[in-house]
């Protein structure tokens, strides 16, 4: 018995660490599975990288296949790919002969900045609106909050983006149409010259997640506010602010966290629509294009990269669960 005690204690003190390690290890088969599924799907899709509008002569096709290693049988290509993947080598893009790791690194920087800015915009406003609405349930404030959140999100971004561009950039001239220099790295050096480029994409991308966060927050807050412990807290005579923030909001965060994780992951991995319509050089534009042009290496590279990002984000959310609701055990 005495010998067992320290061991048990160790296990109780570090379940989170053990859990994290387990989850990180589980990512390896996850990534391999995703790479495999992608590999199968993308080769099942009709058409290849060298099927161009203007047909290429047979000799050129042969040489191209050889140049990019596509003349090997598919299983060989697959195992070659996995071998390179284990060394973090994504290979060469068929479309532009560049190293795929370089492409992803360059583009990801922009998409992450767009994603973080949008996430902050959507979360701050979304949480605010959601909490505000819930405290005013069925009151005018509630309807106003829900209305703002919903109207903003009622238009798909493929419509919202051109409309805000035409209104605020073309007609009013407040902002730029093109956001080629989107980013905040210059801001750290005190150079805010691209501010006309960052506002519209952030808002256009952020409206939908903002509304979503607001709604989940409202629903969750309403749920929590009716719980006994909130009533108890109120009955104890705690200040309403303390009740809302310390007791209600913290517990109401659990469902919100479930959506914040995916929203964050979705935002930092880039938005095809917003990046295209504002000419932002992000990763979102790249990865849909990679499928459309059958750039096999790039498809795999971006998928695996995204999968890692999303899986990590997922893990972080699960860990935050524990932080928000200590009753959850791993």
């Amino acid at each position, binding site marked *: 018995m005495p010998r067992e005690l320290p061991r048990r204690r160790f296990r109780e003190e570090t379940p989170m660490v053990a859990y994290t390690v387990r989850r990180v290890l589980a990512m390896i088969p996850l990534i391999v599975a995703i790479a495999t599924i992608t590999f199968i799907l993308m080769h099942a*899709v*009709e*058409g*290849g990288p060298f*099927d*161009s*509008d*203007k*047909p*290429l*002569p047979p*000799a*050129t096709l042969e*040489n*191209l296949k*050889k*140049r990019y290693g596509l003349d090997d049988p598919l299983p060989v290509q697959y195992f070659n790919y996995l071998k390179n993947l284990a060394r973090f080598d994504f290979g060469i893009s068929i479309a*532009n*002969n*560049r190293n795929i790791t370089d*492409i992803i690194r*360059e*583009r990801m920087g922009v998409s992450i900045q767009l994603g973080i800015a949008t996430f902050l915009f959507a979360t*701050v*406003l979304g949480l*605010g*609106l959601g909490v*505000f609405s819930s*405290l*005013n349930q069925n009151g005018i404030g509630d309807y106003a909050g829900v209305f703002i959140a919903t109207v903003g999100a009622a238009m798909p971004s493929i419509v919202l983006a*051109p409309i805000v*561009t*035409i209104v605020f*950039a*073309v007609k009013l*001239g407040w902002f*730029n*149409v*093109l956001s*080629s*220099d989107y980013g905040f790295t210059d801001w750290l050096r*005190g*150079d*805010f*010259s691209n*501010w*006309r480029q960052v506002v519209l994409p952030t808002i256009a991308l952020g409206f939908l997640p903002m509304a979503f966060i607001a709604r989940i927050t409202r629903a969750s807050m309403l749920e929590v506010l009716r719980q006994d412990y909130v009533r108890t807290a109120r009955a104890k005579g705690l*200040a309403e*602010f303390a009740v*809302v923030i310390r007791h209600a909001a913290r517990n109401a965060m659990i469902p919100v966290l479930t959506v914040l994780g995916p929203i964050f992951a979705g935002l930092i991995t880039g938005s095809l629509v917003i990046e*295209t319509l*504002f*000419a*932002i*050089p992000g990763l979102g*534009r*790249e990865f849909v294009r990679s499928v*459309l*042009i*059958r750039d096999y290496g790039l498809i795999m590279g971006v998928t695996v990269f995204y999968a890692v990002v999303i899986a990590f984000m997922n893990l972080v959310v699960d860990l935050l669960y524990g932080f928000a609701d200590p009753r959850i055990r791993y």
Partner: protein
Amino acid sequence: MTKSYWRMLLSLLAVFVVVVAAACGDDDDDTGGKASGAAKPSGTITIGATQFETWDPHFSDFAQDITHFVYVWRGLYHLDVNDKPQPAMADGQPQVSGDGKTYTIKLKKDLKWSDGQPLTAEDFVLGIQRTCNPDVAGHYQYILTNIVGCDDYYNAANKTPAEKEELRKRVGVRAVDAQTLEVKIQEPQPTFPILLALWPTFPAPKHKLANVDAPWPGPLENVYNGPFMPSAYTEKATMELKPNPNWVGTPVGVEKVVLKYVDDPAVLNNAYRTGEVDATVANKPELDKLKTEFPKELQLYPATRTIGLEFNVTKSPVDKPEVRLALSQATDRATLVKVVFKDANTPTTSWVPPARNGLKGGEYDSILGFNPTKAKENLAKAGYPNGQGFPQLTLLLVDSQTNKLLGEFLQAEWKKHLGIDIKLEFVDSKTRSSRFNSSDFQVVTGGWQEDYPDPENWFLGLWETGGSINKTKTSVKALDDLIAKAKFNTNDEQRRQLYREAEKALLQEANGIAPLWHTLAAFLVKPHISGMVENKRPGDTFVPGDWYIELWKTSKK
């Protein structure tokens, strides 16, 4: 409780205030800081562009890549506005041997790359060898097949390095001395000087490439011999070009050219409206509005591109000439172009554009043109009176807004005039190309965009029986004979006449194609720019005058 609601509201307001304050703060900083790209002082032209795929002129075949190449590199010759090759790096026209098979070209004196290193005949040798190199796998090698040994080298992908090296040396191009280049070709080819003006024969810097297999350096690492050279580059965002100090042609007119990479022409047009770009392609669906909005700035002119219905002549029912003719005659091209394209294209029944075949448009209207009565007769002749018993016919199209309209237009027209129900299949462009390239289709919409300005480019490989890119399986004896006769005919007028006859043989029974329209190039150019519109060519990709960037000027302060 109400109090705390107000607190929540206040905190929300605070967020807004912070955001607004931040925005205003930036505004102040902006006036002190540098202005944004579009508002730069005079001497800068910003244009809308498409991101290039590869920076390698000996490899790529994308229109946007080629446009970049001619901004920064030049070959021995350069095509003038009339598509005649004029000396660029070469000093005068080439000396051609008596049998027409050896070209000797003198380079201008003291040519230098942008880094100051000498540009010699060796660099041109290396350029051509790269295009013929199987490991580079250049897309445009096929236009150099007439160079001695180029095909042998190109087809040696599976040989040993030593064998490849041997074949490389046998490619018929050599530097007689630092300033003299000699090219040997197999058959006398009247269009050969044109090829010496195109990207596959551009020079390759020997001092940058260790050998013919060395990777091609990227935009900022490479050296240039054209009017401009990249000074800054962010993929998918912008490229900035500055004048090349060692450029030997017409001195350039602007300090800086900025290329903005944008995928969507509608976005570019909005950027043109706000002045963020000075010149760009016009978004064709908006053409009606642009005509009134920018009547003087909108440039519309014929491009050398023909689109039509391409038939796989081995697949039923379009293996029957009458069916092909019926489909062509049941298509009202004028209405099509008006409704679907807002008159941004020119209806046609010709394959070769007027600029190349020397004919006025409408030459084949009587054969292929809109004529519902004849169409019905032809369909009946084929055995399907009023469309009865007409087999399944699928029109394959690339999925795009315009193509949806086009497909639905054709479907409705043929239903109305022929009484047949065709199926539309919309696929993405790679699927379409894959089906086309494996001749797995009945009818597709497609055509040809010219590579080099000569009628032969509209036939060779495309329409001969078994031609390397003949995917419609067209096989007409008379056409084969005419193309063979024309191919190496050194009498230019005879040659052009033969191609005119070949066109007639092609279109007589809509063999492989029933042309529908020639594309119009549509651009917007601000009035402060000169030298662009005046020098436009049919193949312009980003702005008019793509091939003469050195002539662009701006009066904007």
